[in-house]
């Protein structure tokens, strides 16, 4: 079988609760800063848990003229602004018709739907409330005239978006893709997770014996993808492979043995044409729910075999919460920055290891290390499992 065309991650841009550009995001991760705080933008007084990873002030962009008054769209565009600053990508240096946009989201612009149902008859509310609304807003802001695709594989959406973006490049449909994920904290999702009793009143403690749930966060995370033969100048790394598999087990709970995640990892390794022995770092989904972390540990052991016990595995959700549609893209960027900077960020708030989670989860502080090939895993509602394999630049 012919080797598929390699796709390069030329640059990345983010807006997160721990930093509103890639540099700030990275320094917060390695210094163990936390972005968790009392939620202020939406009313939460009636909720059991009132904290999360909220972006307090979207300070990057001063002039929002022409951009819908939609939090999700603005998070996405703020991340794009960071991306453009790093890549020199605006105005587009390419034929706009050859630039695509692929974004992943778990919630789209659902907050606009809440406003529309509350009586706001604004002309743009309904189009923005559809889950693909923010993706189109981003394309307009960028001036991109190629395909605009929104994927919604729940919390694996960011990984799916990057894989679909790579497919567009390999198919020759475009010459560059802005791909990644986003989601905003809003009443809708906070009330939902509060009702599911998935949220913790404690810190988010991935793989810790005392872990008691997740906290939600909001973020936007975008990468500029190009074919390797078209790449010029600096780059973050290469997207080597992607795999997905559905659990077919339950609409909200993961399959207890993690078989779906195991299949997704194996598929990603095969797609990347690497073996488990090649993996040097794993960015785990690591939500800190009692079930997720145990299941993920078991799946990693089966999929990676002995290598699972040898490689560092971290989760960054203790720092910024679960950023849903943005999570997988942020975790992929963390992997590539680790390789570039020679440091592996710690799993924040992991203090008492769980005997059932007995792998090396990088507790305490950042650790020197320069991984070459990295695996990032994601699990989501509806039994969506995704895995990305990345290679250092």
């Amino acid at each position, binding site marked *: *079988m012919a080797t598929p065309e390699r796709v390069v991650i030329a640059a990345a841009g983010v807006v997160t609760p721990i930093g509103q550009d890639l540099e700030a995001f990275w320094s917060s991760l390695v210094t163990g800063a936390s972005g968790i705080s009392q939620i202020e933008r939406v009313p939460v007084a009636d909720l059991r848990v009132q904290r999360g990873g909220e972006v307090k002030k979207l300070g990057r962009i001063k002039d929002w003229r022409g951009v819908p008054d939609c939090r999700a769209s603005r998070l996405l565009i703020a991340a794009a602004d960071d991306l453009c600053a790093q890549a020199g990508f605006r105005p587009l240096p390419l034929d706009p*018709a050859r630039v695509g946009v692929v974004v992943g989201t*778990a919630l*789209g612009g*659902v907050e606009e*739907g*809440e406003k*529309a*149902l509350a009586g706001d*008859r604004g002309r743009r509310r*309904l*189009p923005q*409330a*559809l*889950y*693909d609304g923010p993706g*189109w807003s981003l394309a307009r802001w960028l001036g991109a*005239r*190629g*395909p*605009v*695709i*929104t*994927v*919604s*594989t*729940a919390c694996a959406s960011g990984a*799916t978006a990057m894989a*679909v973006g790579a*497919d567009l490049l390999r*198919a020759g*449909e475009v010459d560059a893709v802005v791909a990644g994920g986003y989601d905003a904290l809003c009443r*809708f999702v906070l*009330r*939902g*997770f509060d*009702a*599911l009793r998935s949220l913790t009143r404690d810190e988010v403690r991935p793989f810790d014996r005392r872990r008691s749930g997740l906290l939600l966060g909001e973020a936007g995370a975008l990468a500029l993808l190009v074919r390797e033969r078209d790449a010029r100048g600096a780059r973050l790394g290469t997207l080597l492979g992607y*795999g*997905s*598999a*559905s*659990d*077919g*087990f*339950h*609409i*909200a709970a993961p399959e207890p043995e993690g*078989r*779906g995640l195991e*299949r997704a990892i194996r*598929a990603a390794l095969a797609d990347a044409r690497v073996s488990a022995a090649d993996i040097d770092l794993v960015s785990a989904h690591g939500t800190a729910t009692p079930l997720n972390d145990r299941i993920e540990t078991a799946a990693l052991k089966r999929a990676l075999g002995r290598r699972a016990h040898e490689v560092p595995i971290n989760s960054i959700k203790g720092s910024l919460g679960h950023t849903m549609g943005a999570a997988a893209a942020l975790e992929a960027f963390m992997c590539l920055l680790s390789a570039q900077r020679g440091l592996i960020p710690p799993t924040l708030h992991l203090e008492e290891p769980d005997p059932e989670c007995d792998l090396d989860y990088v507790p305490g502080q950042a650790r020197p290390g320069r991984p070459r090939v990295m695996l990032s895993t994601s699990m*989501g*509602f*509806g*039994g*969506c499992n995704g895995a990305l394999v990345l290679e250092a630049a």
Partner: protein
Amino acid sequence: MAAPAIRGLGVLSGDQAKSADWGSAGAISGPPHMKGFKKETVDRKPLEILTLPRPERPGDRFRRATRECLLALAAVDAMLEDGKASREAIAGERTALLYVTAAAYGASNRAFIERRGGVMHFAYTAPAVVPAEVAIEFGVAGPYGILIGGAPATLRAIEQAARLLDAGTCDRALVLAVEIFEECADLYARHRRSYRWPLVETAACLWLERGAGELSFESARGGRRAAGAVGAGERFAAGPLADLRDWRARATAGPVELCGGWRGEQARLHWRPEISHARGSAA
């Protein structure tokens, strides 16, 4: 890229007037019906929604399931009937599932926002739950994808399915599309000029396997919106699968050209599939 072969197609559509047309695809509790906002019109056409009834399905698991989930399951049943296959034929890790919708999650999102159905219905607000119900019910455990958008997203999903089959990533691929409108009828009426009325609720599932025909996909932004072959009404993502059903019913030889537009994107899929024309309108 080699075109996939069509192994089965199930389409449940709000414009099928007789309940007999449904065959045994799920136990539908009544014939499709029309909901009208007769006093409000666009270009003198009344705002109407051709709705699909909520399918009934035995089992406690489906007590809470939303209408869009149950319609997805009924569409898969119809597809299996069309393909004269048992449910075991699509079970397992070698079956990919690609789900497309522009708006089917609107109903459950609204119910949750307005606190109807209880807060535990939150899980059903995720678009991912519709294919999840299909995966659970039919044991589908292979690669998956969920695209949000109108007809171009469905055409892209068919192309993606062809690519997965071509690469040997799966042995069969299901392209599922569900669109329902009734629960958010007032919101669509608010934006009446954005749609081609009536809105036609549709649930459809296409079963593809490796084939030897030809397939090409193209999309562009701008220009006039391609209406698709089914002239009357708006089906969002489900439109191309309804068009495919009609093409099969005509039993014409030669290629099919599926097209559609959404938010200014026009897409076209030129497809010469291997196909049996033995079944027609029931599909």
